[in-house]
């Protein structure tokens, strides 16, 4: 829109997504300043972080969770904001439900008080997470003060092997570029391996750009993108659709584009990848051993030592075969239909190992419904998984789904930080949903490719 006196840019926000955790204080600040929501039709709300996944009857059994939900309900009502709440068929994890409603479109600027807003860049949108003060600013002015980002293009050649998914690719990228390699950058993912990914795979990639320090992930819009959006509830219709597609096509970066930095890698050589440590950058392929901290670059040594101690893993020990306690399939990274479908292919005909708690949390009501229609829920239930109601669940454990004590999880979520999954000393191994399924069946970290041999 314009340059601000401080040198930053005032950026118009085309789609503002809000949820119960980072919005209540923003509405309070708005009320204190006697300000209105400028464009109520450009803000869309849902509830995800705090919802219980076993029983969603109101009032919730946790009074704090109930208070957060009712505060959001009231704020939406007062300010005339569309709310996809509990009981609606469109509620879900914000980064799952907005794309599936067709709200996220190429060329939009998307902001949300949640770091995984980078997900929406998979559509060729500029999408990033913001804090609560900025949520207030967007509500009041539909705009933000932003500094220009540099762009690093990450070009991925080849084709992902069987048993290797978008999750493995992004864990591999973060491993090699580091958890702060992307600070100051937007990551543009491109190349044959990216183009072959479905929209859901692309969302997984962009979702975790932030785990590499990059506030935005981005993928050029193409036919895959248009096909995904077409016919969705908020997608352009009729003549608007044709005009929209021609505009969207004009947005893609072309062969003459110049990037601040470029990186190339070979997607064909990537193996199923698992994190062993306490940052998403501490990943290794399933066939590798836990690194010896003393042999790592000097700036990675201390955190690797901390990680070995916290995770109770020894250098040079294989990750394959490591016992797990809890298996979680879900989250804004991997709670979409294709994630559940791929995992169910592994599960079919098998049973969850004794003593393992395994559960599936669909990313949204729509995902849950489509999965039920395809009989995916039955496959999981028959194998001994629990099948839950949609929400963020054990990705961040702001709800009853938590690790206990020193439990270790195989998790399809995005963060393995200390204490992330609800127990101050609980441990997390990040991996693809199919790998989580394999871990649940064997009770230990398993190469999913063992299940894919004909």
């Amino acid at each position, binding site marked *: 829109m314009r340059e601000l006196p401080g040198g930053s840019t005032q950026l118009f926000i085309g789609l503002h997504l809000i949820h119960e955790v980072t919005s209540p*204080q923003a509405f309070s600040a708005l009320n204190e300043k006697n300000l209105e929501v400028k464009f109520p039709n450009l803000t869309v709300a849902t509830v995800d972080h705090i919802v219980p996944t076993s029983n969603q009857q109101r009032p919730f059994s946790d009074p704090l969770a109930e208070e957060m939900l009712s505060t959001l309900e009231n704020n939406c009502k007062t300010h005339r904001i569309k709310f996809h709440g509990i009981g609606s068929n469109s509620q879900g994890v914000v980064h799952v439900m907005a794309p599936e409603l067709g709200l996220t479109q190429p060329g939009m600027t998307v902001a949300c008080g949640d770091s995984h807003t980078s997900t929406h860049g998979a559509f060729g949108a500029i999408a990033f997470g913001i804090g609560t003060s900025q949520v207030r600013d967007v509500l009041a002015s*539909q705009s933000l003060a932003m500094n220009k980002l540099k762009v690093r293009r990450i070009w991925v050649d080849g084709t992902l092997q069987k048993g290797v998914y978008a999750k493995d690719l992004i864990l591999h990228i973060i491993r090699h570029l580091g*958890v*702060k390699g992307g600070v100051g950058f937007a990551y543009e993912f491109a190349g044959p391996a990216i183009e072959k990914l479905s929209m859901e795979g692309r969302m997984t990639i962009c979702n975790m750009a932030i785990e590499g320090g990059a506030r935005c992930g981005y993928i050029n819009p193409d036919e895959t993108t248009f096909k995904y959006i077409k016919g969705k509830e908020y997608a352009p219709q009729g003549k608007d659709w044709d*005009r929209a597609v021609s505009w969207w096509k004009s947005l893609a970066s072309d062969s003459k584009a110049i990037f601040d930095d470029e990186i190339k890698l070979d997607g064909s050589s990537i193996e199923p990848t698992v994190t062993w440590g306490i940052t998403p950058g501490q990943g290794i392929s399933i066939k590798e051993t836990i690194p010896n901290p003393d042999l790592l670059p000097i700036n990675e040594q201390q955190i690797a030592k901390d990680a070995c101690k916290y995770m109770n893993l020894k250098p040079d020990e294989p990750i394959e075969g490591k016992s797990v306690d809890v298996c979680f399939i879900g989250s804004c990274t991997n709670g979409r239909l294709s994630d559940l479908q791929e995992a169910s292919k592994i599960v079919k005909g098998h049973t969850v190992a004794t003593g393992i708690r395994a559960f599936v949390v669909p990313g949204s009501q729509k995902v849950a419904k489509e999965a039920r229609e395809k009989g995916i829920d039955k496959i999981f239930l028959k194998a001994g998984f629990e099948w839950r109601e949609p929400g963020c669940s054990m990705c961040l454990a702001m709800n009853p789904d938590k690790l206990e004590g020193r439990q270790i999880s195989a998790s399809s979520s995005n963060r393995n930080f200390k204490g992330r999954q609800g127990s101050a000393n609980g441990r997390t191994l990040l991996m693809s949903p199919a790998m989580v399924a394999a871990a649940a069946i064997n009770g230990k970290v398993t190469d999913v490719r063992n299940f894919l041999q004909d």
Partner: protein
Amino acid sequence: MTQEFPKGAIKSIQGRSFVIRGDDIDTDRIIPARFLKCVSFSALGDQVFADDRNELKGNHPFDLVHNKGANILIVNDNFGCGSSREHAPQALMRWGIRLIIGESFAEIFFGNCLALGIPCLTSSKEVIAKLQNLVEKNITHTWHFDLKNLSFSNQKETVKLDLDEGPYNMLFTGKWDATSQLLDADEKIYITAKNLPYLNNFESII
């Protein structure tokens, strides 16, 4: 906390400092998710670094008696990575922190701090290591931060710090609270909305 929250131009800060060591300290550690179950930030000050403090049973820097009343934090690399929760800088601010100096900061955390009027300044690994040692050896010293000269000093030593021009200007002029500044462009906001293809049924495309 008796200390007032930041307001207006922030040209200097003084007070005692202490150190939180470690790279990649994420916002889940600064404020664990269970404390995000609130509709107001007011109680967060006591909960800052809750799990780390619990583990160290009174020996965490935020619990040490001599750090009580200190307002400057010296950290390492990629501080504040992970979740966008403003609850993290809110918790630090409500405990009493008014300035953070480190090797580098995660972007969203940096912006969230700025929106509260808490400057995050950087310097090289070597300078931060030296500063951390100095601060730990001289726990009673009062340190002075001067925005204009980007300097941080006690009676004997001075270190130079870095801050980009944008945040510098915002702090210097007191315009770090962006809402009113953004609303100044009211007319432009409406014009932009009118001209955006996805807000006018794609009629404005050429």
